[in-house]
Structures are given as C-alpha cells and as structure tokens.
C-alpha cells in the first residue's frame, strides 16, 4: 500500500512537471512566434500581431479542451473513439470531395467553420492513434492473429489514403510511421506488418516517382549541390540562420533572418529564427524540455503496460506523435531530413496543430497522473485492489 501511495504521489508530481513543461513550451513558443512573425505579417499587409493573435486564440481553445479531456473519464473517451474516427473521416471526405474544402497553395486541406479554418488531417492522426489503442487493447488475447492485423492496417491505410488525397505526403509518411509503431508495441505480429508494408511499399515508390516535384525534393536533398538556390534554398538559408546564432545567440528579438530572409519563418522554419536568437544554448534547452516531456510521456505510458493496455498504447502514441513532430521539424530545419511541411509543436503558427497538440497533452497528462490499476493475474482479488478503489 505504501508503494502504491508513493507511486500515486510521484504520478502527481510527474503530471505537474509535465504541465509546467507544456506551459513553458507554449510560452516560449508564442513569444518566439510573435518575434518571428511580426515582420512577415507587416510584409503581407497584415497587422503585426496577426499570427500571434490567432495562435493565442487557439492556445486558449487548446487549453480549454485539454482541461475538458482531463476531466472526462476514460470510459467516455473510449466510447467516443469510434465517433471521433468516423467524424474525422467524414471531415476529411468533406474537405476533399465537397466545396466545403478550402484550397490553399493548390492543396485542399482545410475546412472552414465561421472565421476559423481547420485542418482535419491533424485530427485523423489523433483519432487513428486512439482507435488503434482501443482496438488493440480490446483484443490482447487474439492480437497475433492475422485478422486483427488486417483490420488495424486496413484502418491505417484507409486513413493514409485520405491524407494522400489531400496531397499531404509528408504527413502521410509520419502518420504511417507512428501508427505502425503503435501496432508493433501493441503486439501485432511483425511478419504481418511486413506483408502489408511490402504490399503498400511497391505502389508507394511508384507514386513517388510519378510526380516530378516529389522526386525533385528527394533528389535535391540527397544531392545538395544540384540546385543550391532552388529546392534547398530554404534549408540553406535556415542553416545559415542557425550558424549565425553561435553559443548564446544574438539575443531575443535581435535576429535578422526573420526580416524577410527566411521564407515561412512563422511556421515550418520558426526554429531557425529561434536558434539564431538563442544560440546553441537555447536549442539544447528546448530539445531537452521536449525530451523530458517525452520521457514523462513514455514513462507514464509504460506504467500502464500490464494493467491497462489502452492507456499504455494511447500514452505511447501521443508521446510518439509529439516527439517525432519535434524531431522531424528540427531535422528539416537543420538539413538532415528532406524538406517536409512538419510544424514544430507549440512554436509554428498553425491553429489546428496547436489545438490538437494541447488536446493530446491534456490526455497525456491524464494518463501520466492516472493511478495504476493493479489487476495482476495472480493476485486478481487481493485486498490491495480494494484499497486503491477506496481512495
């Protein structure tokens, strides 16, 4: 009983630490966004705080939804998973196939609600992770059967197809990586995964080479000298900005690359501006904060591995989404990952992304703070359970 109480105490501490880290990231992220985007906004003929205001609005919405998610019981969340999945599919289809979808830059990825537009593919990522966690956790006994893998992978591929329809290939790749990770740690047989990966891999490669610009991006990444001012233009500038930061950076607000030099400085390339102003010191701090958050997430999830498979898989999945968004964005910005449109959580301008990230964080904190159910097979009816129930 002591041990459990102790755990309970440390759970709460970790959850509070997690909340503080998230708020810290959000604060730094918003500040950086304001600093990096005001010039861009002015150049676009908008008010200087245009990006910042929108982001704050979504941050408030996000925190509110995180609190709501934290308060509702898991049983409700689990019951809502199919609804969430279906509605995200519906939104995706509405966006892609009906005039409700909003086209920007030649891609139809947004759907408008009043004055706010929303990117359903962000929702798909989360709902599929939740769905997989729920689905797999209900089938722990038959998990190694081919049928289970088939259904799970079917859902994944269908969702991937929906995202591909919106020409969002980098999100698709990340999504596939994340959901297959869930399947792996969820216990699906690895040979089953490999069958399906091969099945999808061949058309995938064909797909990559059929449209020129996709191939160009990959080629431009592999052979950097082919077109220094073309495909890798942003990345070269970004690395230049980072390099100019030095150890302690130029100081907050002192960066010059955000003043028209770096394209997309308010979204995908915001971190280069941050690195320029805060230097290696700031970069390592941010990476460490994200890392600690991920550590808390993985640890919090792992705690439920034996007791509640749903919490385990969900916690793992959320942490996974968060940390890999960060890693991929940092990779793109520093030129070791091909240029993709992956935003940096809490930093990059983008309402839906922030809302989803905060919502997921709400769920993650809930999982971290959740006390373990002790339903170990041998001691299924021990008094310990009652003690916990009592609390």
């Amino acid at each position, binding site marked *: 009983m002591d041990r459990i109480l102790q755990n309970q105490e440390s759970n709460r501490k970790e959850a509070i630490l997690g909340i503080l880290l998230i708020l810290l990231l959000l604060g730094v992220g918003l500040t950086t966004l304001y600093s990096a985007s005001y010039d861009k906004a002015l150049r676009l*003929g908008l008010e200087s705080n245009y990006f910042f205001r929108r982001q704050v609005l979504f941050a408030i919405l996000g925190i509110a939804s995180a609190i709501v998610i934290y308060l509702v019981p898991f049983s409700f969340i689990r019951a809502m998973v199919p609804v969430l999945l279906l509605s995200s599919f519906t939104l995706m289809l509405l966006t892609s196939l009906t005039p409700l979808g909003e086209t920007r830059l030649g891609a139809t990825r947004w759907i408008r609600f009043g004055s706010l537009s929303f990117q359903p593919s962000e929702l798909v990522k989360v709902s599929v992770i939740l769905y997989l966690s729920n689905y797999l956790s209900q089938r722990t006994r038959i998990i190694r059967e081919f049928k289970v893998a088939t259904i799970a992978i079917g859902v994944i591929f269908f969702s991937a197809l929906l995202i591909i329809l919106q020409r969002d290939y980098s999100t698709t790749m990340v999504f596939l990586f994340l959901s297959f990770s869930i399947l*792996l740690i969820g216990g699906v047989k690895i040979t089953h995964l490999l069958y399906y990966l091969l099945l999808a891999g061949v058309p995938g490669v064909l797909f990559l080479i059929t449209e020129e610009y996709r191939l160009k991006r990959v080629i431009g990444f592999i052979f950097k000298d082919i077109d220094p001012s073309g495909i890798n233009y942003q990345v070269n500038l970004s690395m230049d900005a980072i390099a100019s930061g030095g150890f302690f950076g130029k100081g907050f607000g002192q960066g010059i690359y955000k003043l028209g030099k770096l394209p997309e400085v308010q979204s995908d390339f915001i971190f280069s501006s941050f690195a320029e102003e805060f230097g290696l010191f700031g*970069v390592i701090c941010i990476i460490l904060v994200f890392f600690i958050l991920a550590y808390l997430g993985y640890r919090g999830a792992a705690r439920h591995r034996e007791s509640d498979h749903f919490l385990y898989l969900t916690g793992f999945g959320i942490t996974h989404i968060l940390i890999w968004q960060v890693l991929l964005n*940092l990779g793109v910005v520093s030129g070791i990952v091909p240029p993709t449109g992956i935003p940096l959580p809490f930093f990059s301008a983008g309402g839906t992304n922030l809302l989803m990230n905060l919502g997921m964080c709400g769920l993650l904190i809930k999982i971290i703070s959740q006390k373990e159910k002790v339903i170990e097979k041998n001691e299924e009816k021990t008094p310990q359970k009652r003690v916990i129930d009592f609390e």
Partner: protein
Amino acid sequence: MDSSGKKLFYYLIVSLAVLAVLIMIIRYTMIMFPTKSQEYHEPLVSSRVQRGTIFDRNGTILAYETPYYSCAVLLREIDSIEKTADDLALLTDMSKEEILHKLEDRSTYALIKKRLSDSEYQMLNDAISNRTLPGVTLEKRYGRIYPQQYHGAHVIGFTNIDNVGLSGIEYTFDRLLSPLPDPALDTTYGDDIYVTLDHRIQYAADQRCLEMIEEHKPDSAIILIMDAKTGELLSYTSYPWFDLNNYNTAEVEEKINRPINSMYEPGSVFKIYSLAAILAIGEARTDELFLCDGSYTFTMDNGKSATINCLSTHGEVGPREMLKLSCNGAVASWALQTNDTQFYQYLHSFGFNEKTGIQMPGESGGMLQASENWSGRSKPTIAFGQEIGTTALQITTAATVFSNQGNLLKPKIVHAIYHQDSETFSYSEPEIVRNVLSENIAYDVLQMMKSGTEPGGTAIFAKREGIEVSAKTGTAQILDIETNSYSADHVLASTIAILPADDPEYIIYVSADNPKGGFYYGSRVAAPTIEKISSDLVSMGLLKTDMSEIIYISNDQ
C-alpha cells in the same frame, strides 16, 4: 515471450527517439560551431553587380541600369488562387488565364510579371499597402533601359532578363560591364563604355535613312559614317532596326546587324579599290585612253570570248573618267592587263576576305576567291565589284587607305572605357593594320574620285555645295539564290564618299538593298542621302564648308 516482445519493441522505439534527440543536438552543435571544412560560405552571387553604363563619345547615355519591380505571389499567404488571379487581372495588363497559368503547379512562390509598368506598380503598391492583396509581393530588380530606342541599336545590343549581354557591345563587353562580384563590396560597379558613335550624327543619319526608305522603298539599308582619320564609327545604321527596350518582340530581320553580318557584291563602288590596285601594280597601260563603245569584249584563256556591258557609250576613258562615269569596260580591260596574284594580294590587303576585327559579334569576313580559283571572267568582273562578297564595314574601312596616306585603319567602335577600380579612362588609339598603297597613289585615287561629284559624274547628287566630295556610286546586281543567276530587277544601290576630299574627315557609306521606288541606281538612291547627311554635319558645326559658302550665306542676308 508475448509481453517481453512488446517490451522489446517499446524499448527499441523509445531508444530510437533518444538516439534522434542526441543526433539533433550534435547536428545543431555542428552547424553552429563548424569545423573549417564545413564552414558555410555566403555565395558570391548575393552581392549586387551594377552593370556599367554605355555612353556615346560625348557622354550621351545609350544604356543604363535601372531598378524595376516584379510582381510575385506567395502561395502560402493567399486564400484562393481564383480570387488572387481575379484581383491581379484587374491591376495588371495580364488576363486571368495567364495569371492562373503562372499560379498553377506552384506550391510556394510564383512570379507573375517580371517587369511592371509604372502604373501597374502604382496600383499594385496601393492595393498592397491597403492590405487588399494578401500574398502578393513586389520585388525590386535591376534591368537595362535604352533611352535612344532604335538609334545605334545594333551597336549597343541588349541584355536578357538576367542582365546578360546578348548582342552588340552588351555582348562583347559583358564581362567588363558586369564584372564578377567583389565579396568585399555591397555593390560591385561595372566599367562604363563610351562607344565611338556620336548620337547627334547617328540621329541625323537615321532620319536621312528613313527619308531614303520612304522615297525608294528598299528592303534594307545601311549607313555607316566613319572618322576618316581614326577609323572610329561615328554613326551606324542598319535598317530595319528595332527598339532595344522591346528586343524580345523584334523580328529576326530587324535584329540582323547588316553592316557586319550581311555579305553582298558591292558593285561599282569597288572600282576605287580595283583601280588603286591596278595603279599600284602598274602593269596596266592606264595612260592610254580606253575607248568605250558601250561594251567590252575580250578573249578568255580557254579561247572563248566574253562581253562586259556599260550603261552607255563613254568614249575615251582614262582612270579619272573611269571613276567619274563608272566605266566597266575600262576597269575590266586594265584588270586583264594586271597580274592575277598581285591583284588578289592588293585587294586582300585592302581588308577584303578578312574580318576587320570590330568588337561586335558575328562579323563576316566576306568572300574573295584566291586567284588560282579564278575563271577567265573573274578578274574583270571582280574589278567592278561583282563576284566578290564584302560587308558594308569592309567597304567603308577600306576607304581609310585613301584618307590615311595609303594605310588601312582598324575600324573602332569603342571610344573609351572608364575603369571603376582605378577611376581612370582608357581611350582607343587609331590603329594601322598595314600599309596598302604608296602615299601618292592613295592621294591620286582620292583626287580622281572627286570627278564623281563633278558635272556629268555619277555621284553628282552626293556633293553638297561648298564641300569637295570624293565619291563613287554603285549599282550592284544581286545574285538570285534560287536561279543562281543575277536577278533582273534586284539591285543594291550604294555610294561611298570621302569628304572633304582635300583633307578627309568623314567616310560615309550608304547602301539600299532592292529599291523599288522608281529609281534604282546608286546615284539616285544612295548619293542624295550623302548630300543630306553632309548638310546635317555642316549645320551641326561638324563640317566646314569653303569660303564660298560663307559668302553665299552673307549675300543672302
């Protein structure tokens, strides 16, 4: 196994994340603290190069670089391609379809119009500052402006949209005008070039050219005015011409730099050079008068006979009369009395069959068969300027032999270069290619040429009152490529003049290809233009008339 397998994957995937975090930290450290070999260098192209200005010899601007604005769309900032295209179609002279075409297939950045007009820039700038055009940006760039439009167009040349010279001086001196950027400077300035053209003379010549075109309707025309003492080209007209500012809409015909690119048979103008060669070789009995009865028949080496016709019966003809009346028979007979090899060598030393080396692209060297390849007809035919291909510049330049004591000058197109780095000028000096004739023969031929503008001379219309003009006309038959014979009605009318005859200052060459205005002789088509240009030179104070002119004016008052 089941549980441990799951655990294994869990740890694998988590360690993957940990590894990625470590890689990321190392990566950022490497970028911020690069070892020497990885240091990232700002590419040199980022420094701006201000292309040098092209002036005429007196400092009138012919080409200079100015900023202009381009319109581009940042696709990430726009709400709808359709709406942006609609808006832009209103504010620019482009159609919605054109704009949509430029926007499609782009994902981040699309250039809509490279060079905005002033009014387009104004309207777009207003709209952008009123925040009614999200995602549309105006970018400042630099490009060439040619204030003289078509005057001297073929000499000046033009640059492409990336500011690289494509023709004329812009091409030949591209590296000088637009040097490699100096990384130490914000802006690297190119050297300025002062071409030999005098804009005033160029303008007058172009006007006279237009008058000639109007009256005689030739397919094309050339007027070259050269400084007789230095070989500098003061005016350079090649018609049809084009506006340098709109070179991309110009026809190919208009862009041909005819004075150096086009090779043709010069006709009787060439007699001054063949006569000079004949006199220099001295084998022909030019002191015996040639009796012209309207045609001249001679027997070729193979025993066949050939006939050369004159325009009329010229009677007794000496060298002076030959030039005055343009007698084909006389010059043909003297040529026949002259040694083939030497005749060829003299003509070659006048600069025919070789490039003059003028600093413009695409020069033709002309065509003159070596004497071994001549047929029996060749020598007499060449003597009156057929069966030889020359460029207008060759004809004009060869005349410097007569104005420079028998020395051939190199034609010049660059008068001076201003070097930005040393802030000094370097001027071009007259350059003697070779001595062609003795001073006496050069002087004699020049004096004989005066007969052309005397009463009864073919070039009488080239003479302006009060100026002694040495001139020779020509009406060349043009070879019809399709029939490979001389065309009946296609001629090239031309006149060359050296003036004033006693102390030459200008060499003026006028040619008009295929005049269709009723007259087609050089004496009627080209010679009057020389008279008009001489008058222009007088009125600009660039040419003195003799005393009678001054008295004439004072009498008039």
